[in-house]
């Protein structure tokens, strides 16, 4: 026997759900959800009220935007002198490159940056992209060095600024990456001789700071060469950067190789693929994809590390800044120039890290669930 449940009275309506959209609920959820949260908000607000106005006064309200030395000196450290950038930007961006010829590094760098940006899109990942790289790199060196096509030669000692930073990092990574893949494969090779060589190389380089590698390139390397030979210091430093970042990249790539299940290699072997076929068609495509974020991190690191060439007296972006603001009229306004250069580095590195996140999602479309 069953009894039917019947409500004899009207059930009172429930209160509407608490609003979760709009400004006030957002504020409550994110800033004042409980007393700890509210305390945090108040502390941060107090700090901002204390320190933000002086900072804004310095950076905006008291700032001098004209390249007017007298006005800058009059305001002193009460306001920023952004005019220093307008005054010195050519020296900061192009270093000691001859003034009338500076269109050449400008064109060369633009070509390079456009190509790098284009290489980021999958639509351009076609065989002709390699050709484009060869063409652009040649054009870069022709433009920078001159001596052909009626361009006045400019010796490498006068190259500097942003073009040098871009060159050192792009060529550094372009050469270091294939090298690092070989070293990583070598480190996992079954041949003890090759494995030992690769382990020694990676551990030696990773154990010392980049600056000592650069010192070695600039002071010790000339002694290694046969008498009468000399290699340009720029090339030596470039080789130093390549060897250094290749060691770090090799460890990243090795991480990817280790993460690949053994079954993949065994399956390739049972299909009768040779060692290099296995590496090229089975192992590398899968394992490199796994370590894309780490590879991009190393790329960003190398880009930042090129600033160290300043210490061995090359005038890259950081070095050119020291050069540009060295004169006594403007040296009190170093900070403004430094912030300008920091902003350039920040934009480049931030773009790279955002691209890394995008490419990670993009490459995972095949394996991602959902």
């Amino acid at each position, binding site marked *: 026997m069953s009894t039917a449940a019947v409500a004899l009275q009207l059930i009172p309506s429930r209160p509407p759900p608490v609003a979760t959209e709009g400004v006030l609920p957002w504020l409550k*959820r*994110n*800033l004042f*959800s409980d007393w700890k*949260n509210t305390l*945090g*908000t108040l502390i*941060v*607000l107090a700090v901002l009220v204390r320190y933000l106005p002086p900072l804004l006064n310095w950076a905006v309200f008291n700032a001098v935007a004209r390249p007017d030395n007298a006005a800058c000196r009059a305001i002193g*450290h009460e306001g920023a002198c952004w005019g220093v950038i307008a005054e010195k930007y050519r020296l900061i961006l192009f270093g000691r490159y001859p003034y009338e010829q500076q269109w050449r590094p400008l064109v060369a760098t633009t070509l390079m940056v456009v190509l790098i940006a284009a290489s980021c899109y999958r639509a351009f990942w076609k065989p002709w992209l390699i050709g484009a790289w060869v063409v652009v790199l040649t054009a870069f060196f022709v433009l920078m060095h001159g001596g052909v096509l009626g361009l006045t030669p400019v010796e490498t000692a006068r190259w500097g600024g942003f073009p040098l930073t871009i060159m050192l990092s792009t060529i550094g990574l372009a050469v270091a990456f294939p090298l690092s893949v070989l070293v990583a494969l070598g480190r996992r090779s079954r*041949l*003890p*001789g*090759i494995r030992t*060589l690769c382990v020694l190389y990676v*551990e*030696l380089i*990773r*154990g*010392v*700071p*980049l*600056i*000592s590698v650069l*010192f*070695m390139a600039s*002071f*010790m390397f*000339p*002694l*290694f*060469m*046969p*008498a009468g030979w000399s290699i340009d210091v720029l090339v030596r430093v470039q080789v130093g950067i390549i060897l250094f970042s290749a060691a770090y990249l090799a460890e990243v790539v090795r991480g990817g190789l280790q993460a690949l299940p053994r079954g993949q290699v065994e399956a390739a072997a049972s299909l009768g693929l040779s060692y290099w076929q296995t590496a090229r068609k089975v192992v590398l495509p899968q394992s490199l994809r796994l370590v894309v974020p780490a590879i991009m991190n190393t790329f*960003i690191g190398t880009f*930042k*590390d090129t*600033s*160290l060439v*300043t*210490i061995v007296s090359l005038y890259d972006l*950081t070095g050119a800044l*020291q050069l540009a603001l060295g004169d006594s009229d403007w040296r*009190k306004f*170093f*900070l403004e120039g*430094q*912030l300008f*250069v*920091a902003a350039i*580095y*920040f934009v480049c*590195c*931030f773009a790279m*890290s955002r691209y890394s996140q995008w490419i990670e999602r993009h490459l995972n479309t095949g394996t991602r669930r959902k």
Partner: protein
Amino acid sequence: MIYQIVAVLLVVAAGWYLVHNTLFNMRARGIQSGFDFLTQPAGFAISESLWEFDSSDSYAKAYLTGLSNTLRVALLGIVLATITGTLVGIGRLSRNFLIRSLCTAYVELFRNVPLLLQLFIWYFIFTEFLPPIDEALQPLPGLFFSKNGLQYPIPIWATGHLFMVAGILVGIVASWYWAKRERRRFEATGRPPRVVLPALGLIVGMAFLGWLAGGAPTALDIPEKTEITVGGGGAVTPEFLTVLIGLTLYTASYIAEIVRGGIQAVAYGQHEAAAALGLNGMQETRLILLPQALRVIIPPITSQYLNLTKNSSLAVAVGYPDLVSISTTTLNQTGRAIEAISLVMLAYLTMSLLTALIMNLYNRRSLIRER
């Protein structure tokens, strides 16, 4: 097989060729070689050091001084960067919007600008924006902050302090015994062990007792301001401050990301399981969250410590007398490039390999025990 014989032979041949060239060049240019210069007087002064150093001391002592300066800034930097990085990393997961965005902004800003440039910026701020020493800032009584660096009070050494140190040692031994006893009791009765707070109490209490037993010395050497300068107390130079703060803030931004990643790596089910077992917030953090997060966090954080130590070599750019800076001066004075640079590389390599060794031991201990 043939490949590797060829490869090894090639490397050996290239190495022999380079050595041959080097020897030839050095003979041709009349460059002397060997490490005998280490015993000669250095002939330069070092602006700051843990011990007395003057220009008649040997190059070997100069190198040791440089090494001590590197280690001093690196160790202090590691401690500060760990604290800052952990706080910021936790802050990035905060429910509070302001804290979260501030921490994110900090991480993005400091990670994406080269360390060298950051050092230049800090150095410029410390030497240009701070007041001269006769108008030194005084954020707290006894602390003076000026273009000459930071001056702070230090206790004057008295025999009483020796008792305090002894007290700390006694406290450490006592808390070790306490921890052992607690573990035994936990295994016997299942009562959760209390270790951290009692141990802290023991150490601090013993130190306090030792200090009292030593006659409670309270004399402090406080820097004092006169008309033109600030004298007395302990002091650090703006170069040291630059390197310390630059390294700390840069490395902390990396550590923050590692800490955040480690905390997020603990699966949400672990939190639910802890709640189902009836653990409270503290217990959950201590017993469930931390052991699992630390296993993810510690290996990359060690490599950040190594990076910090290696990055301290950038001190040469602002004139802090670290190992690299001393070595560069030596190189310029003696012309022995190979010896000067290899000494630096040897020092860093030793530090790296030692750390790697300790890390491998730790990793072996903390591995998840699988079937």
